[in-house]
């Protein structure tokens, strides 16, 4: 494809203007690329025809009736607009769906309620399961706590028993000591009484029987 042909086709394709095309083809004629001016002549002829092609054409266009063949070919008789069969089928399908599915329709207090059948039972069941689980958990906890308390109580009782036994022993010892002391005090008191009341009388009765610690005859001994 020559350069001139490329220029000419570029003009035909609208890539360059007519003046640019004319100028470039004119240069090519001078530069011997298109010595006979063949492309330049073609350009001029094409330009003339193009001008004529763009001129308005005023011949009247005849009316062709194509509607009859179109109606015959593409138009279909209007479909009957009877909705009852469709409505009937739709309701049948709806009834089938309602009966097969767990969907439940209830009319109550003038209102229509749609619900899933068994939903309440399922909730109740879940609630019962949860409650049973909670109950078991609580029972286990109480059991554990009880065992722990019992063990604690047992150990504390042992401690208390030891404590009480010890205390009892201590108290018994104290009592015994107190008893011994009391007895001693009583003996002391008896001695003083004897010394104050009976010794002088005895002395008067028996001077020889004055209290003499070394004399064993009286049979009375100083505590």
């Amino acid at each position, binding site marked *: 494809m020559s350069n001139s042909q490329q220029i000419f086709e570029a003009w035909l394709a609208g890539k360059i203007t007519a003046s640019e095309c004319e100028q470039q083809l004119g240069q090519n004629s001078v530069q011997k690329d298109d010595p006979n001016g063949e492309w330049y002549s073609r350009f001029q002829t094409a330009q003339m*025809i193009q001008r004529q092609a763009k001129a308005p054409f005023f011949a009247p266009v005849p009316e062709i009736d194509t509607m009859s063949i179109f109606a015959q070919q593409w138009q279909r008789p209007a479909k009957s607009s009877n909705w009852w069969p469709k409505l009937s089928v739709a309701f049948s399908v709806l009834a089938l769906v309602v009966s097969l599915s767990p969907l439940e329709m209830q009319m109550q207090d003038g209102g229509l309620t749609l619900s899933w059948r068994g939903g309440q039972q399922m909730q109740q069941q879940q609630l019962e399961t949860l409650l049973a689980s909670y109950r078991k958990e609580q029972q286990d906890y109480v059991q554990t706590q009880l065992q722990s308390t019992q063990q604690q109580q047992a150990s504390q009782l042992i401690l208390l028993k030891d404590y009480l036994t010890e205390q009892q022993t201590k108290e018994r010892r104290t009592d015994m000591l107190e008893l011994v002391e009391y007895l001693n005090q009583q003996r002391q008191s008896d001695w003083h009484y004897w010394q104050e009341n009976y010794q002088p009388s005895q002395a008067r009765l028996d001077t020889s029987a004055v209290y003499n610690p070394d004399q064993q005859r009286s049979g009375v001994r100083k505590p």
Partner: protein
Amino acid sequence: MFKRSDESLIEKAIGGDAKAWQQLVSRYQAPLYYFGLRLLGSPDDARDLLQDVLMVLCRNLAQYRGDSSFKSWLFGIANYRAMDMLRKRKATTEFTEDHDFYDDEAPSFEQQLYGQHTQRLVQQQLRSLPPEQRLVVELRFYQQFTFDEIADQLALSSNTIKSRFYAALDKLRTQLELTDVEQSANF
């Protein structure tokens, strides 16, 4: 105003929309008629061609696949029918092709003086071309198709179309030069 695409109109027409079909026909009626008029040279033949193409179009509307533009597809039908008519006419009788279809409506005095004269001259020269070359010139200049589109429509190679086109241009130039010489001699 919003202009519906050809594809949209075709889709609606296939669905039975008469209005869409009417709109599609009115969009291409004039280009098809003028195409026939220029190519065949006779208003009656152009009318026959128009009717024929519209009938074929109506019957085969669903066969348009959108591979090319609708206009290109439509003119593919028109080209085939027009060439068929030209072949049949050549076989029966030699057509003079001197019908004058420019005198029906003349909108202005200026057009009568200059435009019609030049148009008639160019049309006469175009009609003297062989049908194949005339068709290529018509499709390239008047219908604004590219060489590739024309090649697709005519099921030929792009180079064949170009060679026919350049041959037509050369022949037209020779004839126009001869006409100029004759007119100069008459004066």
